[in-house]
């Protein structure tokens, strides 16, 4: 008899998500669908807007990572208006962006990913949340996490005017220079950040790597997909969030492609499925073979693990050491273990903190010359940055008066859409056998899904800390046999 | 679209265009009844919200008739109306309201003929444009 599992709606998403799992007659998983039931049409209503307003329109795509959209949109405008920002402006942008990455990555680990490991994957749901984490690592740590978050967000407010939807980006630079006493304050925050990032990695060591059960889970096949990987690297192929070329490596780790932002259309295409408003990007030159991994499927992955797989290393010393330690533990590059996203995220957080410190200590950053006024006639501009959740692309076309005539946005998480579906299906298939649905199913599905820290899973801010899911299991004629839900 | 009778709101200023309308009346000049007149003391008083409220309430066209530049009873009210008119007309095109549906003109207290011509011309133009079609909401 056929069975169907609906997880709807998944709470704690940025936006709305739904999972449908269909069982075959033997009760095993036949197919799983991950649906995004929401769309707002940003690309369409950007048409007609003055290009210079886009850095204040596009952040409203996501209130969790508005700084990413603001910076990416501003870079697209630099390209559109053919204007090079002065060095101080670039440093200011990267400094603000590093503060954002540090805060966002750490929050994800402690408030979302952490509970799965710190408290244990099979612990009762009520414990698997921030309260559980605090109990395990102590109140003092939680205080440190909240302090880091507030300090980093204050840095962004200081430079961008506001942390939820900053406004300082302009084509050719920034709207406001950095004052010396503010720079000193940021140095303090950065130092605290580096220390905290190292500490977070230590926790990961004690809690995860020293626990065989977790290591098996990480290295196990359930959470493994041999896919292509995409990420941005600087000129010496080191991970860079703010600027550089986009690099793609094959499942074996060989460089498959390297392109400037302007050529993204030669490499990325998007599929449409009737059952989701979200589209599914894949590598054009490999081709769409459906929701499968492997060398000939165009499905690729982005975000922390992908970036580290793609790059030859980290641009800062401490992070580089962690980079090497991670890959040796995982058995070489590229690592395909989805749960390793958590580890890679902490390595990146350390890099972000170190980069923030480097920039904050650079005296030139307080140079008042932070704007070059564009003079060229605008027509087309493309900007790419690495969002916490993957490669973000803003592509604008305008008339000669700088009014947007077309806008194409590939939002970070979308790149992982196909991979998320595959991970959910693989996890479900690995756990549901013969129609028997175990209590751990919910948590295991979450882990597959949460590792990507999908933008709409902005569960980074869970306070009472649990992923609420309700699963209805129906028999083949659709009536509900059993409901398992998380209190 | 022959039987379509456009509904048009006309904002007239008390000292010139309203008096011009009265003059047309005293001279028994007939003109199409489509324009509903609202009297204000000066075209400077006309808040762009009035124009938009008229379109929202179902008008197919809006007219502002004021004193000729330099004749304003309050010196400069009509200049302010002229400034607002140009920016508002440009913005309304972004709302799908064609430029011909919103018109500003000058009619002095004695220009009964010009008043009748302006009204008839506007009614004719809006008749050609047809009713302002509303989008279904949901």
């Amino acid at each position, binding site marked *: 008899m056929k069975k169907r599992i609906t997880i709807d709606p998944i709470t704690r998403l940025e936006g709305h998500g739904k999972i449908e799992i269909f069982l075959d007659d033997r009760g095993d998983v036949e197919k799983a669908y991950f649906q995004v039931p929401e769309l707002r049409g940003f690309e369409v209503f950007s048409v007609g807007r003055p290009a210079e307003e886009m850095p204040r329109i596009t952040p409203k795509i996501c209130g969790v990572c508005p700084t990413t959209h603001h910076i990416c949109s501003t870079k697209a405008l630099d390209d559109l208006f053919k204007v090079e920002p002065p060095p101080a402006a670039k440093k200011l942008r990267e400094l603000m962006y590093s503060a954002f990455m540090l805060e966002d990555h750490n929050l994800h680990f402690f408030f979302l990913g952490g509970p799965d490991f710190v408290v244990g994957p099979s612990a009762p749901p009520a414990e698997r949340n921030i309260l559980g984490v605090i109990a395990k690592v102590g109140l003092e740590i939680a205080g440190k996490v909240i302090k880091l978050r507030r300090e980093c967000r204050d840095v962004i407010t200081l430079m961008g005017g506001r942390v939820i939807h900053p406004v300082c980006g302009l084509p050719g630079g920034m709207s406001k220079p950095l004052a010396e006493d503010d720079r000193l304050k940021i140095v303090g925050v950065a130092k605290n950040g580096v220390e905290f990032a190292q500490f977070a990695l230590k926790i990961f060591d004690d809690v995860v790597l020293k626990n065989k059960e977790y290591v098996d889970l990480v290295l196990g096949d359930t959470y493994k997909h041999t896919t292509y990987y995409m990420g941005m690297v600087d000129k010496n192929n080191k991970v860079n969030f703010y600027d550089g070329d986009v690099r793609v490596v094959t499942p074996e780790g060989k460089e498959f492609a390297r392109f400037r932002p302007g050529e993204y259309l030669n490499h990325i295409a998007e599929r449409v499925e009737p059952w989701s408003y979200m589209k599914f990007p894949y590598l054009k030159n490999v081709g769409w073979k459906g929701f499968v991994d492997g060398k000939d499927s165009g499905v690729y992955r982005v975000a922390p693990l992908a970036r580290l797989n793609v790059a030859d290393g980290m641009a800062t010393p401490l992070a580089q050491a962690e980079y090497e330690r991670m890959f040796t533990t995982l058995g070489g590059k590229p690592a395909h273990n989805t749960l390793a996203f958590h580890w890679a995220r902490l390595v990146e957080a350390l890099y972000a903190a170190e980069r923030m410190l480097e920039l904050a200590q650079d005296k030139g950053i307080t140079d008042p010359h932070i704007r070059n006024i564009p003079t060229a006639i605008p027509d087309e501009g493309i900007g790419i940055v690495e969002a916490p959740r993957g490669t973000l692309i803003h592509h604008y076309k305008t008339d000669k008066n700088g009014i947007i005539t077309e806008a194409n946005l590939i939002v970070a998480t979308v790149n992982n859409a196909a991979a998320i579906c595959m991970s959910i299906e693989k996890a479900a298939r690995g756990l549901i056998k013969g129609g028997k649905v175990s209590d751990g199913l919910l948590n295991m599905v979450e882990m597959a899904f949460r590792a990507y820290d999908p933008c709409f899973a902005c569960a980074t801010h869970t306070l009472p800390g649990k992923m609420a899911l309700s699963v209805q299991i129906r028999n083949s004629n659709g009536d509900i046999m059993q409901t398992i839900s998380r209190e | 679209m022959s039987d379509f009778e456009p509904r048009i709101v006309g904002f007239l200023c008390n000292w010139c265009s309203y008096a011009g309308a009265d003059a*047309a*009346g005293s001279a028994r000049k007939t003109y199409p009844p489509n324009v509903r007149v609202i009297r204000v003391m000066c075209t400077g008083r006309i808040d762009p919200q009035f124009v938009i409220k008229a379109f929202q*309430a179902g*008008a197919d066209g809006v007219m502002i008739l004021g004193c000729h530049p330099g004749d304003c009873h309050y010196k400069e009210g009509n200049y302010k109306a002229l400034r607002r008119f140009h920016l508002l007309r440009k913005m309304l095109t972004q709302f799908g309201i064609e430029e011909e549906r919103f018109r500003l003109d000058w009619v002095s207290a004695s220009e009964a003929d010009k008043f009748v011509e302006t009204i008839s011309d506007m009614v004719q133009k809006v008749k050609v444009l047809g009713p302002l079609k509303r989008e279904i909401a949901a």
Partner: protein
Amino acid sequence: MKVRVGVYICSCGTNISDNIEIDQLVQFSSSLENVGYVKLNSLLCSEDGKNYLAEDIIKEKPDRVVIVACTPKEHEKTFRNVLQRAGLNPYLFQMVNIREQVAWVTDDKNKATEKAKSYIRAAVKRVTLHEPLEKKEIDCNPDALVIGAGPAGMEAAHMLAKAGRKVYLVEKNSFIGGRVARYEDVFPKMECASCMLEPKMDEILHDENIELLLNSEIQEVLGFLGNFVVRINKKAGFVDNEKCIGCGACYEQCPVKVKNEFDYNLSDRKAIYVPYTGALPNVPVIDKKTCLRFEGQNTGPQKEAFEAGLITREEYERFKNQDCKLCKEACMFDAINYEDTDEILERNVGGIIAATGFELFDPSVLPQYGYGKIPEVYTSLEFERILAQTGPTGGKLLTKNAKEPESVAIIHCIGSRDKDYKDYCSSVCCLYALKFAHMIEKHSPEVKVYDIYADWCVPGKDNQAFLDSIKEWKNIEFIHTTLPMNVVSKMKGEKIDLHCIDISEKKRKVSADMVVLCPAMIPGKDTAKLSELLLIPQGREGFFAEGHTKLAPVSTNIEGVFIAGCAQGPKDIQNSVAQGAAAAGQALSILVPGRKLELDVMTAEIDEKVCAECMICVGLCPYKAIVIDKEKRVAVVNTVLCKGCGTCVAACPSGSAKSWHFTTEQIFAEIEEVLK
């Protein structure tokens, strides 16, 4: 709460009922929400129509009234008075114009009826939102301040004083009479200027209602109609006009010799001086810039006078940085006080009259005439002084080096009627040019006069005869050119050769010993500053802008501020005096002692709870009726000055400005109802 509206429909005899189904209107109106009753009448504006209306309102006691009839422009006031009489606030009423704008202009009867219905529906909804408005009034200060003691200013001051008003006459110079004090004779009667002025000046000086403030300028004007506060900067004259009898002993002793501005530097004067013999008031004033006790010590004019050879080295050395008291010692009446200082005086008045006169266009800008380069080229005002007995030559026609000229040339329209300079005609130059000719004919008939003119501007009942009368004189030759601009004067030995093209395109050359230019009249030097102080705009050519070119020549956009004389535009003495009287008349009609000033009721008002002092409205008001309350940091409308045009209300981005009787809510209601 329920509002009960009474609707009265007038058939206007048959004017309305001919083309509108009146009974449908009655039936329709009674179906409307809030309508208490509907009454039909054949002629509401007639006497018994009005009585019927008053009695009915007293009987029915409605909360609001709607009258469906003719144009409000004709009978809104009438019916407001009726409501007043019937004890209902006159603003709780709305009129519906279905005669001029429906019945008379719509041939299809049912369409007319439909249109009338929509107007009634709108009026009934609007009237429910009307608020009672009370007539507002303020008491007003009947006194007045006049700026400028020329013919216009003196006439205004005199009339106001005669009507019993206290007048403050502020004059920049130390004498009164303005430009006319400089003339010998005036056209057309060739009357002696001083004989004409003296009686008027005498009355001004001795009228106790007039406080004469000489050597004084306006520093600041605050307030509004009926309540102006004017601050006046009175410069020290150092001579007490009570004690001084004008004997002149003091200025004989003064060692300083400088150019006398009154005679346009054609004569000299002392540091303590009277501009011309016979100046009134006959009280000298010490000129701080040249007097040795003050700034004139060892620099300035004293040095120039010595270098110009006017005084000897010994005299120059003697008085260097010494405590010179010569004039004080010479004064037998102890009228000179060196401790005198400038002072700021404050006067409260109800109205202000600006009569600040004119200047002459500076001909040196037009090199072709040689003014400023050729010594014998004079402006008309300089020539007036040469012909004046109190002038530098005692009235004798002499050149700068005291020789009798054989010929004098007079050139009209200098800088006038030319789009690059002054494109208007100053209307008096032709006349005073003829006056000069008449004077030369009378005093030095043997002198040859060349009158180079473009067109004759001799309006008025006597002036054509004035022109014709000089034509018989054999020694005058009129040269009719097309463009005075292309007259070129060149020095030729002692003489000045004037090259011009006459009307028949022929080149003409005349040579003359003296050339008199008739430049355009332009606004006085301080007009721009005063227009800012009085908040009244300057018109196209810089003269004060009158309220209306035809109907309000002496009022301005600021209620209570009037203008008169050449300050409003070029004109002759007769018109200046007439305007002085007109301005005084206007002030007298508004500022009646004891009577309160009734203010516009439908003015704007700003809610200080919402206003954020965003400064959008302040600059928009043509009447400068909006000022910032510095403590509360909000904009405030001065309802005395506000005319209720509503421009600020429409522009106010926070919606804190409200326009009484034309509120946004009332107009929104009308819009929605009229489209239903």
